[in-house]
């Protein structure tokens, strides 16, 4: 297992990049701690696959260095990096049996047959394919083939890192649960350095120790799921993480109060006088409906019952506000105001979070 260092790293697909806009991956300095599980999360085109390809050696960066355990591997080919990779679509040898597929990376490296046998058995148990070990991969379902790909990715214990590129996209929701849980307990057991690329927030948050949120070629925040939820560093993080995402409202902020469309609310902490475009960000989880006089007067457009809670789609002077209401709670017709829990109110200046002043 290895520590992975990104030193001054940047990449442009253009031969002579001129401005920052020309870079698909903007300058990045970072240490990936040995043995941690990371998720790279972002929308298509945010640069997450570019970064993964640089780490795996499929792509050489136009600027900067990449180090494995402090050794420069920037120009080293994939084969010399000693990493295992699992891709979005299954890569399986159809003419081989499931057992041969799983054993392949070990055989290639001349591992001891007794060890191979034992290790393959272990992995097969983990992916739930012990009963199909002797059958040919041809004709198996896409789910089963992807499980083989995952198993083969994890069969070697001596890799520097395990890289996953949207590995569960083709898997059914129920099976996703199982595989994700298995990956997680495997990480707990063996402590591999894992990097997992996905656009699915649930996968990223539940899998990783640290989630790296990317937007427009930049890492906008790296943190634990709790940090991303409670203190989104950028309005994009607030929007992208959470279902629905954070409510964002234009506001004027002075000290510990905010004025939103003519209505004043208390912020619970001082923020001075933030510069630039000032916005409040409040997650639907910190937003509630009220029949009282406090809060913002809204019109309720729609209530969606999503089982374990309801999503109330409200409108405040043309700005949508989403509110979460518990499964058993009633919404009475006189609830026409939205109230924010001050613990969940964040202030943004030009899209970046402003830290509250110490009391």
């Amino acid at each position: 297992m290895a520590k992975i260092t990104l030193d001054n790293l940047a990449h442009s697909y253009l031969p002579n990049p001129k401005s920052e806009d020309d870079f698909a991956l903007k300058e990045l300095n970072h240490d990936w701690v040995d043995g941690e599980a990371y998720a790279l999360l972002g929308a298509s085109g945010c640069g997450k696959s570019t970064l993964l390809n640089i780490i795996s050696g499929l792509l050489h960066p136009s600027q900067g260095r990449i180090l494995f355990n402090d050794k420069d591997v920037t120009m080293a080919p994939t084969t010399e990096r000693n990493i295992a990779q699992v891709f979005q679509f299954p890569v399986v040898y159809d003419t081989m049996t499931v057992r041969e597929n799983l054993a392949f990376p070990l055989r290639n490296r001349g591992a001891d047959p007794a060890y191979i046998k034992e290790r393959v058995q272990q992995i097969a148990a983990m992916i739930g394919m012990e009963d199909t070990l002797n059958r040919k991969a041809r004709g198996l379902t896409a789910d089963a083939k992807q499980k083989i790909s995952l198993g083969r990715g994890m069969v070697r214990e001596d890799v520097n890192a395990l890289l996953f590129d949207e590995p569960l996209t083709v898997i059914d929701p129920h099976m996703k649960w199982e595989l994700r849980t298995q990956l997680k307990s495997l990480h707990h057991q063996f402590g591999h350095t894992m990097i997992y690329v996905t656009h699915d927030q649930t996968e990223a948050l539940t899998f990783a120790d640290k989630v790296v949120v990317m937007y427009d070629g930049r890492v906008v925040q790296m943190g634990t799921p709790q940090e991303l939820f409670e203190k989104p560093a950028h309005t994009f993080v607030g929007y992208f993480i959470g279902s629905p995402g954070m409510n964002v409202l234009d506001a004027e902020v002075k000290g510990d109060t905010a004025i939103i469309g003519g209505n004043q609310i208390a912020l619970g902490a001082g923020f001075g006088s933030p510069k630039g475009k000032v916005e409040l960000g409040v997650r639907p989880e910190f937003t509630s409906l009220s029949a009282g006089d406090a809060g913002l007067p809204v019109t309720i457009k729609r209530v969606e019952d999503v089982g374990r809670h309801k999503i109330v789609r409200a409108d405040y002077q043309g700005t949508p506000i989403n509110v979460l209401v518990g499964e058993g709670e009633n919404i009475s017709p006189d609830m026409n105001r939205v109230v924010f829990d001050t613990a969940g109110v964040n202030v943004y200046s030009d899209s970046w979070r402003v830290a509250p002043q110490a009391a």
Partner: protein
Amino acid sequence: MSLILEGVSKVMNGQTHIHPTDLTLQSGTMNVLLGPTSSGKTSLMRLMAGLDVPNTGKVIWDGNDVTGMRVQDRGVAMVYQQFINYPSMTVYDNIASPMRLLKQSADQIDTAVRKAADLMQLSPYLDRKPLELSGGQQQRCALARALVKDAGLVLLDEPLANLDYKLREELRAEIPKIFEEAGSIFVYATTEPEEALLLGGNTATIWEGRITQFDKTPIVYRQPVDATTARVFSDPPMNFINVQKTGSDLDFGDGQSVSTASGAFAGLADGNYIAGFRPNHLKLEKETSSALSFTGKLMVTEITGSETFVHIDHHGENWVGLVHGVKNLEIGADLNVYLDQSHVYIFAQDGTSVAPASYATAA
């Protein structure tokens, strides 16, 4: 107007894809087909569209038997998981193409195309080619084309599956609004329970070529007719435990039991049953005095930022709990969990629901 399937079935290469199925869909409704991959969603849609002819049964459209009528002769629009557009045509021409085939006037076409483009937020891109658009825009282009066709029946086969999570969330919120206005029969296939709930309308749960239940979406979710429906319509999966009814006592093991003298479980015959409950109803605190209490081994926790999934081994059964807040718990340790009686569903050994959870029927 309505679409009625009467005893429709489909067998291909000796394999039954659809068992004899009855289903009635009304105009202006959103109907979700919910089931895992290969459960028969696409097969059923192909029968509705007329792309396949059923082995038995009849398809009745607006009172007329259309079984065997070609798809071209029916008013059907279909959108697939893969974005299908004409790459050499502009977005405008792509959207206009079904209307041109019907030889409608240029004015009519222009009005409809611009309205659909507006709804799908494609107005700035009408002069572009599909491949110059993002994946989400390409699929919106395919959806807009289905919309202008003004078909009586619109079939959407996992239309958002290939899109980014966030984009899916946005389109999912838009789709029911758009379709409410259009007044057609909408059928939407998905593998995801959450998508069915967000779309609302009606849901048919499908399992191994059979519709297990068809009703308003929240009813199918809260009052599943059997354990299969409950399992299909639960993500994370529903948890199960074997229970035994003797006299006035329903025994959950671990010294936990519920009196059946009155209440939701009164009237159960003596015997073995399967109790089911949803992950979000499993609690880490005893919130009600009558809550059942269990101890399991904590296998894995997953934190989403605002909630924690706890995976528990309870006497060899895997249970999942979804609890509020971020919980840092010790893996491998024993964990006490609690379950309110009102959240328990009771199924017979064959899976048939015999006592729905009382919270679900109270509302």
